[in-house]
């Protein structure tokens, strides 16, 4: 049984050790770059030029490529088919029976696939090499409310428990003769005795959990400390500010581009 739904792959590479906010800034800069630079090639260039090398540095390139491939392939096929066959007018590349495939359609589909690759790739770069709790801690230190941090981190951990609890309820109800397989109506009927105990049970759990964290001074008004320290360096701070400036430049460039 998995203990959390986090994508994090444990490792001790230089990339892993980067401050979570540094990694977050890299991700955001890459995303912005891909969306702002008006070329279908930009996303591919960023993917090959930055995401791949960084993932190799972090030893997470296998997981990254596998996940990107799984998501991009079905999407890519459908987008090429739909855009290729139903684009409308443009420079005809070739025809298959009644369908014509235009050059503009292929370029558009190519660009879309590139953007999706970039979005997923840069997100995974962050998620695969960053512990969710240290990212959230770092964000709390920047001023994000502690309650939000708590909700995000517990959701990551409790989702698998919720699944296994649902499984237990299904088993229990089936052993008492509940039929859960068959047509839509049978399945619909079976849902009530499954959902009800799950939801009611969870409400009770939430109450107890609230008491438990309250008993450990979660709502303490005073200053808090942190067991896990996050290493930060001058160089990284400088690097983050540089990326931040770069993002501003990219946004400025985009505005200038659309005005002229």
């Amino acid at each position, binding site marked *: 049984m998995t*203990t959390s739904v986090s994508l994090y792959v444990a490792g001790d590479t230089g990339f892993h050790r980067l401050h979570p906010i540094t990694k977050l800034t890299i991700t955001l800069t890459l995303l912005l770059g891909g969306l702002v630079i008006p070329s279908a090639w930009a996303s591919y260039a960023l993917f090959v030029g930055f995401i791949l090398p960084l993932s190799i540095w972090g030893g997470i390139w296998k997981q990254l490529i596998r996940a990107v491939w799984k998501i991009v392939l079905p999407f890519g096929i459908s987008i090429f088919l739909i855009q290729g066959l139903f684009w409308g007018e443009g420079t005809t590349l070739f025809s298959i029976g009644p369908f014509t495939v235009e050059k503009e359609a292929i370029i558009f589909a190519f660009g879309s696939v590139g953007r999706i690759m970039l979005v997923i790739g840069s997100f995974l770069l962050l998620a695969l090499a960053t512990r969710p*709790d240290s990212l959230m801690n770092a964000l709390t230190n920047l001023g994000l409310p502690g309650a939000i941090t708590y909700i995000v981190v517990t959701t990551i951990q*409790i989702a698998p428990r919720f699944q296994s609890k649902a499984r237990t309820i299904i088993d229990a109800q089936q052993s008492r003769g509940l039929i859960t397989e068959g047509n839509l109506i049978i399945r619909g009927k079976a849902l009530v005795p499954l959902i009800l105990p799950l939801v009611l049970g969870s409400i009770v759990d939430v109450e107890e959990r609230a008491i438990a964290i309250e008993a450990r001074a979660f709502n303490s008004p005073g200053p808090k400390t942190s067991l896990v320290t996050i290493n930060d360096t001058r160089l990284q701070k400088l690097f983050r500010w540089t990326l931040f400036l770069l993002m501003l430049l990219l946004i400025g460039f985009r505005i200038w581009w659309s005005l002229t």
Partner: protein
Amino acid sequence: MVVVDVNELTYTYPASAKPVLSNVSLKVTQGEFLAIIGNNGAGKSTLCYAMAGFIPHFFRGSMHGSVHVAGKDTHVTSLYDIVQQVGLAFQNPFNQISGAKFTVYEEIAFGLENTGVPRPQMMERVEKVMALTSITELADRSPYSLSGGQQQRVALASILVMEPKVLVLDEPTSQLDPVGSREVFQVIKEMSQRGMTVVMVEHKVEWIAQFADRVIALHDGQILLEGKPADVLASPLLEEKGFGLSRYTQVARQAVNRDLWPADRPLPVTLQEAVEGFSRVSG
């Protein structure tokens, strides 16, 4: 010194007509180990919540009477201030895992982070309490990957690490095997001998007899009996009201009917007492 002072406490939950606790008064002195026994619905957990300040601060409903903990009236003290004095651990260990931490070590440190304990002291205290509750080897595991018994120890450690003046425990050994229960009782006894005041709801009569200083039997929201474990736990009144007796008491009761138990001796609760009584008859 009286650390916990419950005075004529009556409490009714919001959606209920009948009070769960009626006119309960009790005092616990510093370093005392008080055990509370009672059947389901007797009001044991409610009493725990009241002593830890969750009544009236977390549960609504109507509360009459007063509860003072470490000299503070829980009515007018904020829950945050109360939890610094009173540690509460309850039965279901799974729901006591904060969910915010990925290792047992960090889980135990959670309360200390919240109260702003500096990192070096935090680590020292966490390591000390892990050794005390014999969970040092679990430090790097995910709290969710543990067994019920291990989680229960983690839950206890997470409260002990905050070094409360009063420890309120609601069936803290429910998931533990006999060896584990004994260890937990020993840890708690040790804490009480060091001056921590302990109030513990528990069903394991033989352990109570061995470790607790005083026992209160709660029945239908009222105190039925109160006194030394040996006096309370072998009382015929308990059996009458449907309480479970220890197996040694049950055996001795049979023995009395057959003149196999010395008439001048009270019924035994522990193995030790049973052995002493029976050896006098046979010897």
